[in-house]
């Protein structure tokens, strides 16, 4: 399992467009991928409903966790999206 803690730089947080890109990237992973806001409960990063439901805003800290052989690559891509959006 790989985990990363990042501060979201996307201007709109993880709202519609970045949320969709985030979920698409997570869905490509074979293993489980979760995202949590701060110390909160993790939710599936493969669900746009769950990701938008977290209400992540710019400068919020999120913790993303991935399982599987490609975990580090998945986290790289998710971090990139959270930074750009």
């Amino acid at each position: 399992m790989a985990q990363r803690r990042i501060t979201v730089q996307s201007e709109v947080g993880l709202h519609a467009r970045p949320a969709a890109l985030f979920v698409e990237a997570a869905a490509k992973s074979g293993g489980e991928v979760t995202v949590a806001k701060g110390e909160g409960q993790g939710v599936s990063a493969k669900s746009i409903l769950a990701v938008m439901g977290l209400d992540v805003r710019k400068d919020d800290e999120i913790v993303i966790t991935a399982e599987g052989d490609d975990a580090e690559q998945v986290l790289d891509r998710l971090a990139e999206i959270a930074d750009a959006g």
Partner: protein
Amino acid sequence: MLQVLAPVPGTAVAMAEVSDPVFAQGMVGPGAAVRPAARPQDAAAPISGRVAKLHPHAFMVLAESGHGVLVHLGIDTVKLDGAGFEKLVEEGAHVEAGTPVIRWNPADIEAQGLSAIVPVAALDADAAVVGSVADGDVAAGDPLFTWS
């Protein structure tokens, strides 16, 4: 089967018509969009449920069945930082399909050089579950698409 209603009056078009590729390609979810009539109006809940997220320019209604629908008022309207949008309910409120949620004027959005098109997306849904998509003139509260 869930009937999803048009949140705003205007012209129903395919999601692919939305100028933002993330919506147009169905990445937010399948569904349909409405080119809103250029006059002050209330954007209404497309389904009955809880207003799980309420932004000035977008909202998500979550039905008891777990179906979630996102209504996004215009493209890149998050940049307006709420100016021109008035929330008519509180986040977390239970609404019936057709209940007014946000008051806005698409003409003001267009005047600022933004698209006022309103994508209505079925969240976490496969494109195959969306059917009976409306095409052409719709009033707020008219059937927009079905979600099976």
